[in-house]
């Protein structure tokens, strides 16, 4: 990994509008802060190398190196990343409280991991109004308080950094792909710090095509509805093409094309739809609004899912082949779009002096993703 300091981070990510506000650089030092979804650098810092830069999922991410470190195998263009199985899943009957998204698998798995002592705390994303805020919870009530999708880029990882600093360990994180990437970078202790301790013991990844910029979403919605009435938001799987707002007594649908203008530029450079660096990944399932797609990736993830099924916390069944194919196509398309865009913006595999890349992949992988 090529690791630089806060000045390069600011120049390459913040100033270029590529920051998605994941929070990986926040709470490591007094300089980076997140306010209403936007990460800012308060003062200049002169460090030549910093964790802020090393953890950032939007600059100098070397997928080949990261894959070797995490999976002991090279990064290839396989659409769903390294995994050990894909199934349909939903929370077991009567196992979730209140409203959840799709099958409620994420909440159910998180609650189960907490109950079983696989994790002691869970770092989740709640919202205050329409502003996403990270929250660490230690009980099931807290988990369900954070349930449902936020759709806005959230500084969730700032809470992981805070936990690490305060000596909290054995933390589970529910992470979007960018956040799961940052967590994977973080867990490699890229600066070889002697005092490094990995506070994270489980990552439940979320599927994500893109997120929305909180600062843009709020005025966008304010101009259309009384935002205090919004109880729930949803983007149903294709071919729906709408953003749904549940206002309690009425439902409003906004065409996705209008919403796409609110996507941070950084999302367009993301090659990961299914949180490839997580222990398990969860997303919606086409045609089955009451179910989720569940990808198991690691031994820990496998153990969690098996135990949760055994305990009845979640229910799984085989994934229909057509659904799996659609998922693979969608995930591959995201990779192709990201690589094409990174190349177009001169942010891919740069080696020239003074030029830095958003990410790096083996040229053969790039060729595979950009070839016809």
């Amino acid at each position, binding site marked *: 990994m090529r690791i630089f300091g806060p000045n390069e981070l600011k120049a390459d990510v913040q100033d270029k509008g590529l920051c998605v506000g994941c929070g990986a650089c926040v709470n490591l*030092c007094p300089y980076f802060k997140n306010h209403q979804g936007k990460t800012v650098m*308060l003062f200049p810092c002169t460090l030549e190398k910093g964790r802020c830069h090393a953890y950032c999922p939007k600059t100098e991410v070397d997928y080949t190196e990261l894959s070797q470190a995490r999976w002991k195998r090279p990064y290839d263009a396989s659409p769903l990343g390294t995994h050990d199985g894909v199934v349909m899943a939903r929370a077991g009957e009567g196992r979730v409280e209140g409203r959840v998204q799709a099958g409620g698998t994420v909440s159910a798995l998180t609650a189960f991991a907490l109950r079983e002592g696989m994790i002691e705390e869970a770092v989740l994303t709640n919202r205050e109004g329409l502003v996403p805020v990270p929250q660490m919870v230690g009980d099931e009530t807290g988990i369900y308080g954070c349930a449902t999708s936020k759709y806005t880029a959230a500084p969730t990882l700032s809470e992981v950094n805070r936990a690490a600093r305060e000596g909290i360990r054995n933390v589970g994180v529910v992470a979007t792909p960018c956040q799961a990437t940052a967590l994977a970078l973080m867990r490699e202790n890229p600066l070889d710090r002697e005092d490094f301790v990995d506070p994270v013991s489980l990552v439940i990844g979320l599927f994500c095509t893109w997120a929305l910029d909180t600062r843009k979403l709020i005025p966008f919605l304010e101009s259309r509805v009384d935002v205090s009435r919004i109880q729930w938001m949803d983007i149903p799987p294709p071919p729906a093409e709408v953003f749904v707002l549940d206002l309690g007594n009425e439902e409003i649908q906004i065409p996705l094309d209008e919403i796409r203008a609110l996507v941070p530029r950084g999302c367009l450079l993301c090659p990961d739809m299914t949180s490839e660096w997580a222990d398990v990944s969860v997303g919606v399932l086409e045609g089955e609004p009451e179910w989720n797609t569940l990808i198991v990736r690691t031994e820990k993830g496998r153990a969690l899912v098996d135990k949760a099924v055994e305990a009845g916390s979640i229910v799984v069944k085989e994934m229909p082949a057509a659904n799996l194919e659609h998922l693979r196509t969608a995930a591959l398309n995201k990779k192709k779009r990201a690589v094409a865009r990174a190349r177009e913006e001169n942010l891919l595999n740069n080696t020239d002096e003074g030029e830095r890349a958003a990410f790096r992949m083996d040229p053969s992988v790039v060729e595979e993703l950009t070839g016809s």
Partner: protein
Amino acid sequence: MSHLLTDEPGSRILLMGNEAIARGALEAGVNVAAGYPGTPSSEIIETLSKVARDRGLYVEWSANEKVAMEVAAAASFAGLRSLCVMKQNGVNVGSDFLLHLGLTGTRGGMVLVPCDDPGALSSINEGESRQFARLLELPLLEPGDFQELKDMIVWAFQLSEEIRNLVFVRSVTRLSHASGNVVLGPLPGETRKARFKHRGFILDEMEGVVASMPMEYRHRRQQEKLKQAVERFESSPFNTYTGPEHPELVVITSSACHLYSREAIHLLGVEDRVGLLKLGTTFPLPPVFMEKHLGLTDRFLVVEEVIPFLEENVKILAQELAPRIGPKTIMGKRDGRLPTVGELNPDLVVEALASLVEVPYESAPEAYVKRGQELMFFGAPNRELTFCPGCPHRASFWSIHNALELDGRDGFVCGDIGCYTLAVLPTGFSTLKTLHAMGSGTGVASGFGKLGRFGMDQPVVSVCGDSTFFHAAMPALINAIHHGSDITMVVLDNSGTAMTGFQPHPGLDVDALGHKAPAISIEDVCRSLGAQVRVCDPFDLETTQATLLELLDRAGVKVLILRQICGLSPEKKRHKKYEVAVNPEVCLGEACGCNRLCTRIFRCPGLIWDKRAGKARVDEVLGTGCGVFASICAKGAIEKVENREVTG
């Protein structure tokens, strides 16, 4: 009893320039004095306020200079003698009133003392008040030493009553703030009785209406009065010539430059070749006196600060006199021999003069100058202007800066004159982006806050001090509210006119004489005008920042009052609210990810970087115990413990 009341005519005492001015006013029997604080003028009103009770004076710190002029003028209209004092900028503030006053004239003697600051030693400009004398057609005197500072004030009061108009007496920093021996005159025994007579014929200058109408008549009268002043100037004891009967060159000078010129002539040893024409009555110049001295030789060097005011007036007169005295070569600033910015000093005058009299002179050996420059560049530590330890402004700007950065819409701060002006520099985290006159921050912000329709989406913040709020920020605030501008005005309320020495202002419950006075509440004023008002303690960084972020998000005019008394105030000095210390066990020094935020960015002089230990350390002598450090260190290494004996 104050030494200023020494009633021993003929005795010689050491007085600061501003005290000499105050003594002059006392010897002239001044009744009323008003002013607005500003370096280098402040000690005049302060000195007079201390003897006010003994001498039966009324002295006030007015809300601003224009009001000070009006207050002093009222005393004059009622037949009293009045003095009005301010720094150079103040004359601009009051000039609107002066334009009318020149036409209406005065009754009791009225003297205006502007103290200019060439080189802007304590200012952010070096504007000249002398130009106003020409612009407003009023007589101008310029004392050249400490004795004259006193004597000219007495003389100016007499002149004012002779011509029934205002007289300017201009001082400068190097006179006001230096000290010298002054021979005292007598203090008058009687005081006057005030009565405003207004029932006389409209054109009766002593008993009629005080108004500038009919304009042409009044204007003509004003010019006649000025001519009358010139006649008195012809025999003024303050215009002197020293030097040979047939000089090769004459230096024409005034004010503090008179001292530099004398020194320059002496240093070059050309007393027998060069004459010195020292002028005390510089506008209008007395033509008969000038003709006599312009006739002494053909070459003249005019030495003055800052811009060529005297030089131009001499040139006009020389041109008019040319048919009788012949053409003259008048050198100075317009030909570049002397600089037109900054202060002069003996070296600069010597340099200009040496080439004219062809005397080689080296103010300092070249090698010495070179070595000095080297040492300055490589050897001297970089010392920037900084807020004092424990200054509430540092904490305020920390929060303003951070709130604007977090807000992330490229917001900025418009400011004006006060200690907080320093926020253009790193000590205020370079937060101030526009800087103009008193109250201008809010006025400029009011304008910026209306540019939304042109696509401007940056948050606009203004700052002003508590004294400035009353001085000139209120009309700007009213303008912003009336026009629906979107601004956040931050009043940095440190409870006094702190920069100039804690003079009271209308927001405090005491006046210049030390009497109890009704305090005007800034928050009540703002609320009643319709602003959304919040008050915070700037030392509470978290609340201040959160409040600012909340206000930045709202439309309309918001006022945040950040109230914390100045660290140098008599109430606060020597009282440490907290004992503050760095816990060396917790401070990781260079190993911390903070990159020395406390001493590299926050940079309060009360906290030092201990190079040997590689950690931060509180300077117990400089630290004021405000406790803010504890909120700066993210690691929690700076600990504070409340000092019970002080607060309890």
